[in-house]
């Protein structure tokens, strides 16, 4: 059979979202690929310009729907820098708590989707089941499972409910036992190793050149983690290791993500200890009136007097579960941000698809793309 182009997407079980991978096949071998995105472009950056600073948070949850907390955190850091505010320390710890729980939740979602790509059926259910426990924890203090609206400019919305810490610890114990079970189901099976070893190799040089970040980069042996290299919030006050592997293949990415979940459990235990000991305010004291969140009558109609508020530019970068996310917020003194720009890690990771897909079999596309951990919401924004 001669070479042929096939469209994998936008509706295809492999995509885990809404994008299109055009694949040129020679028999079963991939000769060329052309990823095509934009099917979920919702104009978040544009809508943000019409929204109040705190209202952008609702968009951030929906921007990356498996890592809402991380994107809230990203935006909040940039907005606070643009508005010259600083959160109290307890809020910083609470944000780290959110981030790390989100990392576990996102990686569990990834695990569930990834094992389905290589045909494992039951671990999908196990991953979703354990993820639901983490979501229950989110719900117990934010009030929602996926769209939290929890962080605010200048702090967080509310403190943890009583008894949260004990429950969170139970969930962490349960999860850390489950991680070993996951390993049994995947690494313990020879078929998995045969499928995933030496698959989708993207070496460190290519990773850096193509802007690939996150677990994909760390699986190539590059020890870059913004939580360590450029600590934000309370990350400089907790102990953890950066998970690195050196295979640069699908198995290595699997290992890195599993190790990150274990490290997240470790961080969370420290953070919970700190939160138990140090009660305090969770919202900054000196907030401008219209940022004093809950009671802010937001000047939709334009009759609120514009006040002279110092201009500023905010820049932040966080280590999202998928990789390095960057936000750039321009404050021109109004109630709305003048310009919001986000950098999504998966955006770059997909753009390098030509580097790690060509030469493999068509059956290898799902595991490789699964190991990239695609969240198309943040790619298209």
């Amino acid at each position: 059979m001669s070479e042929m182009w096939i469209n994998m997407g936008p509706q295809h079980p492999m995509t885990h979202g809404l994008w299109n991978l055009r694949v040129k096949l020679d028999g079963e071998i991939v000769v060329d690929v052309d990823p095509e995105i934009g099917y979920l472009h919702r104009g978040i950056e544009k809508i943000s310009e019409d929204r109040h600073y705190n209202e952008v948070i609702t968009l951030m949850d929906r921007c990356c729907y498996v890592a809402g907390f991380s994107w809230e955190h990203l935006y909040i850091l940039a907005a606070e820098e643009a508005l010259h505010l600083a959160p109290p320390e307890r809020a910083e710890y609470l944000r780290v708590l959110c981030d790390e729980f989100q990392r576990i939740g996102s990686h569990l979602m990834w695990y569930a989707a990834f094992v389905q790509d290589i045909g494992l059926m039951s671990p999908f259910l196990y991953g979703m089941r354990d993820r639901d426990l983490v979501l229950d924890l989110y719900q117990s203090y934010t009030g929602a499972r996926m769209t939290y609206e929890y962080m605010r400019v200048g702090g967080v919305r509310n403190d943890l409910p009583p008894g949260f810490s004990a429950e969170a610890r139970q969930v962490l114990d349960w999860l850390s036992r489950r991680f070993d079970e996951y390993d049994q189901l995947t690494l313990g099976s020879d078929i998995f190793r045969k499928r995933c070893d030496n698959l989708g190799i993207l070496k460190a040089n290519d990773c850096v050149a193509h802007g690939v970040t996150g677990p994909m980069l760390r699986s190539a042996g590059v020890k870059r983690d913004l939580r360590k290299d450029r600590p934000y919030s309370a990350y400089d006050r907790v102990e953890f290791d950066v998970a690195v592997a050196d295979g640069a293949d699908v198995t290595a990415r699997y290992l890195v993500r599993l190790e990150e979940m274990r490290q997240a459990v470790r961080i969370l235990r420290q953070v919970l200890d700190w939160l138990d000991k140090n009660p305090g305010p969770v919202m900054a004291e000196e907030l401008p009136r219209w940022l004093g969140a809950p009671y802010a009558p937001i000047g939709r109609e334009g009759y609120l007097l514009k006040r002279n508020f110092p201009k500023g530019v905010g820049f932040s970068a966080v280590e999202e579960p998928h990789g390095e996310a960057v936000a750039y917020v321009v404050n021109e003194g109004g109630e709305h941000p003048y310009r919001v720009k986000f950098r999504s890690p998966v955006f770059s990771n997909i753009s390098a698809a030509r580097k790690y897909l060509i030469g493999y079999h068509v059956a290898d596309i799902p595991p490789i793309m699964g190991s990239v951990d695609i969240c198309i919401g943040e790619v298209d924004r």
Partner: protein
Amino acid sequence: MAQELTATEKPNENPILWVTRPMATAARQFAKSLFRPSTIVYPYERLEDPKFRGRLKVASGKPFGVGQVWDNYRGVHALNIATCISCNLCAFSCPDLCIDMVTVPGGDPKHPKKCPQIDYGKCSYCGFCSDACPEGCLTMTTRYELSTTKRSEMIYSPQKLLEVFQHKLPMNPIRLARPANEDAILLEPLLCIGCNACARDCPTQCITMLDIPKPEAKPGEKLPKRIWKEPVVNDSDCVRCGTCISVCPKECLFWGTRR
């Protein structure tokens, strides 16, 4: 830090038979879930039932739900029309513009009572409105089943929200404290014409019009044409809704810090 690189090496275990270990794990799970899988039989069992609340039971291998998951879940709003003061704050704070203030019976003809009508086809359940509600009359409940066959049934009028309130569902217990350095309504006296619009429309009736002395007209100077009254805002009653600012014809009220 004991280790620098944590996951450097792939565990290179040699499986005895290439299927045994995952199959053993699956069998273990099968044995656990044979008589009681972690499924919740939804229409008959509900997570918000008291029997699923309380402490987590993951230790027994039956993850069923965590603690007080449901008390602050953000579902459908409940509106207590009786205590609503028509301050518009919910509609202002809504990021999705899904709240309309509609007239409900009960107000006097001059000041019709307006209560929120919420379009659940637009609402993003962020809770900003219930956070903004100064009287606590608009809260979010744990009700989440909202499927309809008509788009129009998604718009909940105040009466329907009142029905939700009367069901007495668990409501979001988290109330946010008001910021201590909240701005107050300030007056630019030179612009004010004493028209009483702010006092008339204030939902909390915290504005009173006080008489001010009419100054003597100096020769050659014309006194401004106005009523010689001035609004005085009672800060402790004010909910900072901004209605007075919006109705002021002369734009003489503004936000500021009271010294």
